[in-house]
């Protein structure tokens, strides 16, 4: 058995238990970082500013840091569980091992919906950005955004189809450029390099400080998630990293630190340059706040840099979403939670090619037919349901396999505090979502109840129960 080295060129991705063609283990911590931050960074470029509209600039900062605590808990919990349950599917595989099949099925669906909807939202945004470039360059007609929306999805799906290493190396480069653009904008506008353009004192005084009081802060929480939504996606790379126990915690925790910095800098620059009423109107006001901030500097290099940064952040997010949604769908297929046909791996490219291709028309349908705010809301709601599952999963994980009973790649501190904090913040955010999008919340929950009934009464008979539990762990405590 010692001859089996899954990372060797001869046996890479092939194992002793029947796998002839498996996913390729080629990724390092930098790719994990690129996957997590790449999905999220678009939230810094656009979307978060709706929080300003809900409660003013300070409310957006409170939401930014509260959501930051929520996601730090998410990153810590994810790092511990995934460094132990290192398989594609991420939280789905965690749920399968720790909670049970029905939870796993639901979590798998949350993941696929959250990422596919986010991918669609990103493609809509990419189409819009290109039409804006056309307008700014003097094009007088109305640009048809559809071919650019479709091209974004097709190109990135093709990249994902061809191999995970090229896909996430591409993400690493464009995410790094987008993050560097935020740093350069911060350095150039705050007086560290050149003259300071910040006007916080004027823009945030009097009623502009907290225009709707503390209820505005609560309402802002919904969009506070936008600063970090998707960092949990790093877990989907678990089966394709060379060293899961090291790379996943390292990439995920470095990712949340990057995002906390990027979110705070973004808030600081934008609220110091743009009046809150305009900043907070993400539809008719500042659609892409960092780009608006760059426009206000009157510096052509900054305008170009932030324009490119916005487009790159959008593409990185869509790219990461295709990667993650396809891994979740693939895992569901591989265990026969869905037809086993989806559990196929390409023999040359070593990617879940059928899952990648199958999700393309679904993403296209949402991108071309559904309004952006609805798509985004359904993505957030699915993400939120996933975050609610995580603390319960963590508590059960520590209870069933206490410290020392299995080897963990990372052990998060202060348990159960992060789980309790995460659960409480999820409850507050659910309330905030209910205030603004109650109908969608009820519709979404109804959908998952119907899907659960279908799974329980029909689909479960096809599930491959032998692969329900694949980790070489001891029997859980109390069983």
């Amino acid at each position, binding site marked *: *058995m*010692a001859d*089996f080295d*899954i990372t060797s060129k001869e046996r890479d991705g*092939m*194992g*002793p*238990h*029947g*796998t*002839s*063609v*498996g*996913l390729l*283990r080629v990724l390092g911590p930098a790719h994990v970082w690129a996957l997590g931050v790449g999905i999220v960074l678009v939230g810094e470029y656009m979307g978060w500013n709706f929080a300003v509209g809900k409660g003013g600039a300070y409310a957006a900062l409170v939401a930014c840091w509260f959501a930051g605590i929520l996601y730090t808990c998410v990153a810590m919990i994810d790092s511990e569980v995934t460094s132990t349950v*290192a*398989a*594609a*599917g991420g939280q789905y*595989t965690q749920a399968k091992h720790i909670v049970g099949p029905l939870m796993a099925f639901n979590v798998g669906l949350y993941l696929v919906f959250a990422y596919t909807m986010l991918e669609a939202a990103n493609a809509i945004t990419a189409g819009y950005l290109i039409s804006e470039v*056309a307008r700014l*360059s003097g*094009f*007088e*007609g109305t*640009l*048809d955004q559809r*071919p*650019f929306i*479709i*091209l974004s999805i*097709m*190109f990135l*799906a*093709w990249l994902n*189809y061809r191999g995970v290493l090229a896909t996430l190396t591409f993400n690493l480069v464009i995410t790094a450029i987008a993050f560097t653009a935020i740093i350069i904008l911060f350095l150039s506008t705050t007086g560290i390099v050149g003259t300071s353009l910040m006007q916080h004192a004027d823009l945030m005084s009097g009623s502009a400080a907290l225009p709707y009081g503390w209820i505005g802060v609560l309402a802002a929480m919904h969009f506070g998630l936008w600063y970090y939504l998707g960092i949990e996606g790093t877990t989907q790379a678990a*089966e394709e990293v060379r060293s*899961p126990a090291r790379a996943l915690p390292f990439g995920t925790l470095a990712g949340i630190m990057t995002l906390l910095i990027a979110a705070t800098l973004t808030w600081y620059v934008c609220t110091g340059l743009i009046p809150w009423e305009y900043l907070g109107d993400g539809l008719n006001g500042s659609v892409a706040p960092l780009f608006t901030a760059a426009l206000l500097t009157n510096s052509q290099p900054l305008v170009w840099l932030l324009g490119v940064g916005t487009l790159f952040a959008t593409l990185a997010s869509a790219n990461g979403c295709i990667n993650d949604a396809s891994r979740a769908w693939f*895992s569901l297929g*591989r*265990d026969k939670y869905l037809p*086993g*046909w989806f*559990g*196929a*791996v*390409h*023999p*040359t490219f070593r990617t879940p*090619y*059928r899952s*990648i*291709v199958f999700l*393309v028309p679904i993403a296209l349908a949402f991108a071309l037919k559904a309004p952006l705010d609805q798509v985004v809301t359904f993505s957030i709601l699915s993400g939120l349901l996933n975050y609610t599952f995580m603390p319960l999963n963590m508590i059960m994980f520590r209870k069933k396999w206490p410290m020392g009973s299995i080897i963990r790649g990372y052990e998060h501190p202060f348990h159960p505090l992060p789980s309790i904090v995460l659960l409480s913040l999820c409850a507050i955010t659910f309330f905030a979502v209910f205030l603004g999008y109650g109908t969608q919340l009820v519709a979404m929950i109804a959908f998952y109840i119907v899907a659960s009934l279908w799974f329980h009464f029909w689909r479960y008979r096809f599930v491959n129960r032998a*692969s329900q539990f*694949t*980790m*070489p762990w001891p029997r859980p405590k109390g069983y």
Partner: protein
Amino acid sequence: MSIWNYAEYAAWGLSAVFALYMVIDWLKTDSTYSEEVLTSSREGELEAMTEAQGGHHG
């Protein structure tokens, strides 16, 4: 016609190329390899091996 009108056509064309590439390769792959090989991936292979190696050395 502006350059942006050409860009629209180029985007339609490139989208079709990427879509065709995936569909053709998908059909070719499915007809070349058996379903057994394509769906042979199993979860937890690395962990199983690590355990086996641990057992072997231990």
